[in-house]
């Protein structure tokens, strides 16, 4: 695959060329963060629905039928104030697919009847998400780590439900204007013809841009270990998010070293991390336990997090084992053998990515949206291969503090509340 990325004045563009590809993909991400409120979160979710609910002369149904007729998928989602638009098309249908995408982006109808429907369905969806213990555990972790103004701070379903009716159709239309004006990140993957068509459409849609609004992240100053609990009585397991904020961006010198060390602790996916080989394999306490950094870009800091779950009867034992591994890696660091192994592991995982066009497009796009061109990302990855054990261990010592982290648990916690509170500092 041939990958190029550029940062233009109106958008950052990645082109991922795969000779003879039968499929084509376009990812567009737009950062619309202005303020972190429950209302803004709801506004973004409603907007992502309404953008797909009628455009130009198409009603919502007609637009969907036009996509189905081509075998094309167009999807709009939102997360952390980023709007994400994706298109998947057969290479042979890329031109008409792009026409549909263009009309959706430039001529959305935002009809009142659709607005009413979107509000109604969102309310029902939010009511259901009260039982999403895993999502709630992560939100409460972030809320214990960050001030409310920060992008990472989230809202629980009931907080969002309380403000759904305050959003107006005028708010939706304003957000759309802002989205068209904001700086975009766009990735196009496929055969050469698909890249040409995608770039042409982009140039016709995007003819102005304003400078991105600076985004501020403010971590709370926690000084001791904190436990946050949330009861979801229908679940069998207790979902856990354990972590802490980190003052690192992708450009901070020890960012690569910290990410590397965290991979040794709990590489996301597979069985190679220490947590999987001890807490799961040797002790049999959970089906899955992983660690990674989240929310970190070229300009924003984020947090590290362990994601796992335990049966209520094992939860105290499981947290004890997890904290033992965090303490061990923070205090004693990684070994020479782990340094060598994980250099190979990280190199392999990237090579395997190129076996898939979609995974490659998503990788390149995710990094470009975080502020890294392909060359910059490769330079970042090269740092992994040059790291020394001393650098990794110093980064872990500096940023992984087992005595000052947050343990967020959601699930059937009532009967084990006392056991869990004992972990607080």
């Amino acid at each position, binding site marked *: 695959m041939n990958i190029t990325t550029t940062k233009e004045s109106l958008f950052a563009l990645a082109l991922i060329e795969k000779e003879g590809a039968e499929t084509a993909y376009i990812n567009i991400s737009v950062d619309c963060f202005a303020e972190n409120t429950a209302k803004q979160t709801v506004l973004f979710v409603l907007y992502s629905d309404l953008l797909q609910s009628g455009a130009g002369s198409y009603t919502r149904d007609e637009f969907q039928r036009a996509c189905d007729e081509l075998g*094309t998928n167009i999807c709009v989602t939102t997360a952390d104030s980023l709007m994400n638009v994706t298109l998947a098309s057969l290479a042979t249908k890329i031109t008409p697919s792009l026409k549909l995408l263009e009309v959706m982006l430039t001529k959305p109808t935002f009809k009142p009847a659709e607005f009413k*429907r979107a509000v*109604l369905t969102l309310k029902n*969806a939010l009511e259901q998400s009260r039982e999403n213990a895993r999502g709630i555990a992560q939100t409460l972790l972030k809320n214990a780590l960050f001030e409310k103004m920060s992008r990472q701070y989230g809202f629980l379903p009931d907080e969002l439900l309380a403000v759904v009716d305050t959003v107006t159709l005028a708010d939706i239309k304003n957000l759309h204007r802002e989205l068209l004006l904001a700086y975009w990140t766009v990735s196009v993957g496929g055969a050469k013809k698909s890249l040409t068509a995608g770039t042409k459409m982009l140039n016709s849609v995007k003819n102005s841009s304003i400078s991105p609004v600076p985004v501020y992240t403010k971590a709370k100053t926690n000084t001791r270990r904190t436990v946050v609990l949330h009861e979801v009585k229908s679940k069998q397991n207790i979902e856990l998010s354990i972590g802490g904020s980190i003052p690192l961006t992708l450009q901070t010198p020890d960012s690569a070293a910290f990410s590397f060390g965290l991979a040794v602790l709990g590489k996301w996916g597979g069985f190679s991390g220490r947590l999987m080989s001890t807490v799961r394999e040797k002790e049999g306490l959970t089906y899955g336990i992983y660690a990674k950094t989240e929310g970190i870009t070229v300009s924003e800091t984020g947090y590290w997090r362990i994601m796992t779950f335990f049966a209520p009867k094992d939860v105290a034992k499981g947290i004890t084992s997890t904290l033992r591994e965090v303490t061990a890696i923070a205090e004693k660091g990684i070994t020479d053998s782990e340094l060598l192994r994980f250099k*190979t592991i990280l190199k392999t995982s990237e090579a395997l990515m190129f076996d898939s066009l979609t995974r490659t497009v998503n990788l390149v796009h995710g990094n470009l949206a975080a502020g890294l061109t392909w060359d910059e990302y490769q330079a970042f990855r090269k740092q992994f291969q040059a790291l020394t054990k001393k650098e990794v261990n110093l980064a872990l010592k500096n940023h992984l503090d087992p005595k000052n982290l947050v343990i967020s648990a959601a699930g059937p916690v009532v009967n084990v509340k006392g056991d869990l509170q004992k972990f607080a500092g």
Partner: protein
Amino acid sequence: MSKKPKTVSTQSKSKQFKLIKTVEDISEYVLKSNGLRVLYKHIPGTGVITTNLTYLVGARDEAPGETGVAHMLEHMLFKPTKQDLVNKHDSGAMKFEREVGVVLNANTWKDRTTYYFSYDVQHFTRALTIEAERMRDVVINDKEFQPERTNVLSEFDMYNGDPHFALSVDLCATAFHSHPYGHETIGFRNDIASYTTEKLQRFYNHYYRPNNATLMIIGDIELNTALTEVGRIFEHLESEPGVEIRPVIDEPTQEGTRRVEIVRPGTTNILAFAMKHPGFPSAGWFETMLVLKLLADGPESILQKKLVDTGLAASVTVSQEQTKDENIATLFITLSSKTTHAKIETLVRDLVSTLTPEYIKKNLKNAITKTISEEIYNRDSSLDIAAELTEYVATGDWAKYFETEKTLKAVTIKHIHERAKQLFADTSLTIGVYKSK
């Protein structure tokens, strides 16, 4: 489905193998010494190979009291083999991932159990060696088994915390009286908590044999190199004469709508329609899929418009498994707080009758186009191709992998209209109610 492939040589120089057949760009060989099947597909220039070993053993092969044993055994194949113990190291599979970073995993389903690696071409021999060793030589003892059992119980609790899963378990058990599709692959919790290493060992000895397995090799490796290595590494493994006999089970005819109810703490309320349909990859299986798409897939579908858009339901989803024999497909409706299970049941039955020939005529072509495109999107990498091919291998005819488009294009309005009637007939339906208290 895919572009016409370039002509490639399917003639192996290896005398150890017999070519069974070639369809488009995939060829099937059998290792003469023990009956191991090999499917080969060349994808040059990627530097990546996926190997996938699929055994024809799954939840359907389990007796009452030992449900989940096929899945439990899958976990045990990541434990050390005799060779690993001699060499004093971790299990070969785990070591492979921990040293190299390959993608590895396994999954068990109703008709099959599958193990796969995706890796850089240089590791081909190592991947095959691990598969050959763990086909016969995994050491199943309590030291390895007991912690893994608690992991599987943790996995069970993870699934069981999902109301849809909990309801599925009861729907299967109610819909089938005789056929072993009446239990979910992971098994019942009490069974998982009680079986022994002896039971696992018996299962392993019988089913983990070369003549009960298909090895898929998909990626950047030449045919002769691939087969020569497979022959060298697998030739000595012994076949099992009785393994290919799988009893044919004829599920008794259903004589009326069956019902099941679950009550749990929480806020979720679900109504489910489980419908019996023909096995995969028959025309009837695809007709069922299309009926479900017209009813519940996407914003323009009947139930999305009438239930979700009106606020009566929070969501409408469907599930349909690719199993060899007749199975159930399930339509799940998560209710909003504004309605009741009884009202939605009546409404859904009415709405199904709006699936008229006129409606089908207007929407069928798009549903077929959408399905064919999804198939193409799903064949994105060697790993994805192997995963999809696995389901065809499990049903006994991998060549049908290439017939999906033809099968779909042959579906008519009448087929869909008749299929919808059959799916919602009393002789097919099991209705599930999940209530929160």
